[in-house]
């Protein structure tokens, strides 16, 4: 079916060109296609070349698929008018593209010396390691030189980062940082009429309007390529216009009709966005040819008449007609162009399919989580200029705190954020309530006062937006520390980490990075807010994200050193790091007895010493001399384990306690080493039992790593956290640990 329809559409174009007769008088190359239009005859023909190239690539993609040599058939056929955007946007306007962007890219890459859009696209169809965008990992539209960060775009989840990029462009300028982009650059996101209904896309559009309403320059151009169908489901007529043309704080344009009309409307939309810096929405009328992808049989949900109607609106055919009828080109010229494109693409396909493919896991995952501990340590432990510190802290340097001299983890994280914002002028921090209020738990107090509203600011209440802003900020050279107020709130936005932020280095073969350290307050046991939403104890969704590092400090001294390590990883290697802060320990002061003050800590002064930072793999050990049992834990569980160890010691059991500190990657080398030394292991995981924490992985890795001693785990119940005292019923307790330890030794 789909093959036949390809032939039909190709045949329609050939038949038209074979029979077409143009006017007696041809336009000169510099003549407008119609009076008043800015599109010249020559430029229109150039666009058509790009559109034809894109079309032929789509045809050959299906041929390659049939041969078993190509692996991607979601085509740009019917969307070729997006070449008009590719031609008019600058290569310094960051673009986040829809997957039907073949013609857009052909036109955009024309602006670059030495670009090879034809061959690059074939390499990506064939998933060759020579593909210059993703290195053969995925078919994505992208280009480092042309500022097209690649992503898959299937659910429009790239819209928030496009907004974040627009927002961050002016923010970086305000901070005097060079983004490498001109002052009037705009950010562009293209997507389909079906995917714009995704919550993520709507969140992005909403946040752009919100930012503009709050007087922030937000030059983002949203382009809805409206083919009026999402796979098999028809979009209601005028749905896009009815929705988006009526929104405040969003300029709206519609590009329809002949290519010259589309050209002029696109030009106006771009200029409006560029000059007003206002969020702008452009509906570009497209048509879908040949189904959603090669495997999609349109006849299952469309009548023959509907299919033929769509084919009759083929934009390549329409543009051929327009060029010939206006005298911009002759039928013979277009026939010759088409023939040339078909020959070129098929010849190049022979070469592309012979190019190497990925065969090793190591090579495939190489860009996911770059490791560079030497440089990380150097960056994390570098001394911070004392004079700059004095300017910010005045006489209240954290290390000189008095009454008490030792402080809580919440206070220490606040100190560390101050120091890192002194050290790194490109650090910005933001989220809900982080600015004026200073955070729900006071962790960001005084940052706005000390560093200004440009570097520490409140956002709207939407975690998707927060993570979108972080991605955009990272892309243009800022080092964002977004805050997600509660771990449970992350879940509505987690695809921004999983599908977008963490996949960028993978899809771009390490060419693009969006470094960030995401602070998330989480885990159970807090005595303030009760219930699930403020005590979520499941990190499974974070641990499964490829390339994501997870830091989880248990005390203030470690938290400061880990924050330095996390930021160094982000700054040096573009890593995305989550910094999971146990809420219940923010203000904890005591360990064994009320008033003992043993959970308060000093401040590791950033004086260049080697031990003032911690990196993944570096664990904390208490009672290193004990050998009866190794207790492996983290966060609240670590503190409970220390208390349990004291009880056990009274019973004559000498337990060594290990604080993992990092929950991804797990510090298995250290755990295995201590496990071997002790011969008995209890894993204490405060997360709920079923795959929500790290216990399963630790146990499996110990066993597979050759540990042959006894091993058990204690975990919280497999439940949401209930309100009030009931929380203690489901959460892991000190007594559970003591009991578990004794079972190990039984």
């Amino acid at each position, binding site marked *: 079916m789909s093959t036949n329809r390809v032939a039909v559409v190709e045949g329609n174009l050939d038949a038209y060109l074979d029979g077409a007769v143009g006017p007696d008088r041809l336009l000169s190359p510099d003549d407008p296609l119609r009076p008043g239009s800015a599109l010249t005859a020559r430029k229109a023909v150039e666009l058509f070349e790009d559109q034809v190239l894109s079309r032929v690539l789509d045809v050959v993609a299906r041929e390659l698929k049939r041969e078993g040599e190509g692996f991607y058939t979601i085509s740009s056929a019917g969307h070729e008018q997006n070449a008009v955007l590719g031609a008019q946007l600058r290569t310094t306007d960051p673009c986040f593209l829809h997957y039907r962007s073949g013609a857009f890219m052909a036109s955009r890459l024309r602006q670059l010396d030495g670009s090879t859009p034809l061959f690059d696209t074939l390499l990506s169809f064939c998933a060759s390691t020579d593909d210059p965008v993703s290195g053969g990992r995925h078919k994505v539209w992208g280009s480092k030189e042309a500022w097209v960060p690649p992503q898959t775009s299937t659910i429009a989840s790239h819209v928030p980062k496009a907004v974040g990029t627009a927002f961050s462009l002016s923010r970086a300028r305000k901070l005097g940082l060079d983004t490498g982009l001109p002052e009037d650059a705009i950010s562009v996101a293209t997507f389909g009429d079906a995917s714009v209904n995704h919550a993520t896309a709507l969140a992005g559009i909403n946040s752009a309007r919100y930012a503009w309403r709050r007087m922030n320059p937000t030059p983002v151009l949203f382009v809805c390529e409206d083919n009026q169908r999402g796979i098999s489901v028809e979009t209601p007529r005028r749905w896009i216009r009815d929705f988006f043309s009526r929104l405040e704080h969003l300029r709206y344009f519609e590009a329809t009709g002949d290519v010259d009309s589309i050209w002029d409307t696109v030009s106006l939309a771009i200029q409006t966005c560029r000059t007003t810096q206002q969020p702008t929405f452009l509906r570009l009328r497209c048509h879908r040819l040949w189904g959603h992808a090669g495997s999609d049989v349109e006849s299952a949900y469309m009548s023959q008449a509907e299919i033929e109607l769509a084919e009759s609106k083929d934009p390549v055919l329409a543009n051929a007609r327009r060029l010939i009828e206006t005298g911009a080109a002759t039928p013979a010229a277009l026939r010759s162009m088409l023939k040339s494109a078909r*020959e070129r693409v098929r010849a190049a396909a022979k070469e592309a399919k012979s190019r190497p493919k990925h065969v090793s896991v190591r090579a495939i995952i190489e860009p996911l989580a770059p490791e560079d501990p030497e440089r990380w340590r150097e960056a994390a432990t570098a001394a911070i200029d004392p004079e700059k510190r004095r300017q910010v802290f005045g006489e209240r340097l954290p290390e000189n705190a008095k009454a008490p001299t030792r402080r809580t983890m919440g206070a220490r994280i606040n100190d560390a954020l101050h120091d890192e914002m002194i050290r790194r002028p490109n650090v910005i921090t933001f989220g809900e309530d982080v600015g004026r209020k200073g955070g729900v738990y006071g962790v960001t107090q005084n940052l706005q006062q000390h560093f200004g509203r440009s570097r520490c600011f409140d956002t709207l209440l939407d975690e998707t937006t927060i993570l979108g802003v972080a991605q955009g900020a990272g892309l243009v050279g800022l080092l964002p520390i977004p805050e997600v107020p509660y771990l449970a709130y992350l879940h509505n936005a987690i695809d921004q980490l999983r599908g977008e932020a963490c996949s960028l280095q993978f899809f771009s073969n390490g060419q693009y990075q969006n470094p960030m350290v995401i602070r998330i307050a989480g885990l159970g046991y807090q005595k303030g807010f009760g219930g699930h939403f403020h005590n979520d104890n499941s990190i499974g969704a974070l641990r499964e994200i490829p390339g994501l590092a997870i830091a989880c400090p248990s005390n203030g001294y470690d938290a400061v050193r880990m924050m330095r390590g996390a930021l160094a990883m982000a700054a040096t290697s573009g890593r995305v790091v989550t910094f999971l802060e146990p809420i219940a320990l923010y203000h904890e002061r005591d360990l064994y007895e009320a008033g003992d003050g043993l959970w308060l800590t000093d401040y590791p002064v950033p004086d260049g010493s080697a031990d003032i930072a911690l990196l993944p793999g570096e664990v904390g050990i208490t009672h290193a001399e004990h050998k009866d049992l190794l207790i492996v834990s983290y966060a609240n569980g670590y503190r409970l384990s220390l208390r349990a160890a004291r009880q056990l010691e009274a019973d004559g059991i000498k337990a060594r306690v290990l604080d993992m500190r990092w929950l991804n990657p797990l510090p298995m080398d250290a755990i295995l080493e201590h496990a071997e030394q002790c011969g008995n292991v209890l894993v204490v995981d405060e997360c709920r039992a079923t795959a929500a924490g790290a216990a399963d992985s630790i146990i499996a890795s110990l066993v597979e790593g050759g540990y042959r001693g006894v091993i058990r785990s204690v975990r919280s119940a497999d439940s949401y956290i209930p309100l009030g005292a009931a929380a203690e019923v489901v959460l892991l307790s000190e007594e559970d640990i003591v009991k578990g330890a004794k079972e190990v030794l039984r």
Partner: protein
Amino acid sequence: MSRVVIMCPGRGSYTEASLGSLDPDHELVRTAERRRSDFGLEPLLALDQAQRFEPARHLRPAHVSPLIYVKAMIDATAVASEHEVVAVGGNSMGWYIGLAVAGALSFEDGFRLVQKMALLQEELAGGGQILYPLVADDWTPSPEAQTAVDDTLASSGGEAMHSITLGGYTVLAGSAKGLSHLLKTLPQVRIGSVTYPIRLAQHGPYHTRLAEPVAVAAAREFSDLKLQAPHTTLVDGRGRLFSPWSTDLNELRRYTLGTQVTTPYDFTASVRVAMREFAPDQLVLPGPGNTLGGIVGQILVAEGWRGLRSKADFIADQKSAAASGSPPLVNSMTLQAT
């Protein structure tokens, strides 16, 4: 008919071995001689049929450039009659030849451009070019050589600069002072029987800002030059395309008479783009000489074209084609003739 890309040679291609390249009875030779006489310069055939090669005489820009132009045009015309030419480019002066091969200039206008530009260079551009390898004898990249080049340019006080990216070689240019610095500072490297850096005889500092006077004069001299849309796509020295259907003639003029004269020429990019975007059966190198043969080989190996990953691969592939009688991937017409 095989699909071929033609890459036209630059100024270094006419050598002693090239004497006698021109067929006196060829129409293009006769036409060229008529146009040559317009300039009052000695006939090309007198040069081509000389008993012995005199470098000072033969390599004078105003002599060697039209000799190369005519020979290359004869070869390219022969190729076009037998094959489908899908794209055309060239190295440096080869760009002008390419314009004529692709039909953007008539043969006679191409001749005038080549001849006059050579004279302008003699008149206006002091300094010159040197050639230096960035690969070892086996064509593997030499990071040390690249570093030496970068350092030498950086220490030249702005008197030396990059001129042409040429496969495994770089062409550097400079004022007299800059050339002296390059020749004195670059470490000597031996490849085959040649020791580098070598000064390119009677070459001006083309593709650099030192050639700006030439560009200024060219704009004046060629205000009437009749450029037209090429019948075959041109690949320029930036790796940009000028197609038969959408060529911007103003841009083609600006590029030809200005941009490429005063900014570096990337022959590597032009070959790479021609191969990737046109995937020809053959890349044909018209004569005279075969100066681009190895260079094109180096570019193809760097690109991994048809799985070629080394100099040895390339040589074996060429030999295998020759042995089987099939057309080689890189077809040097000079080698073919011999």
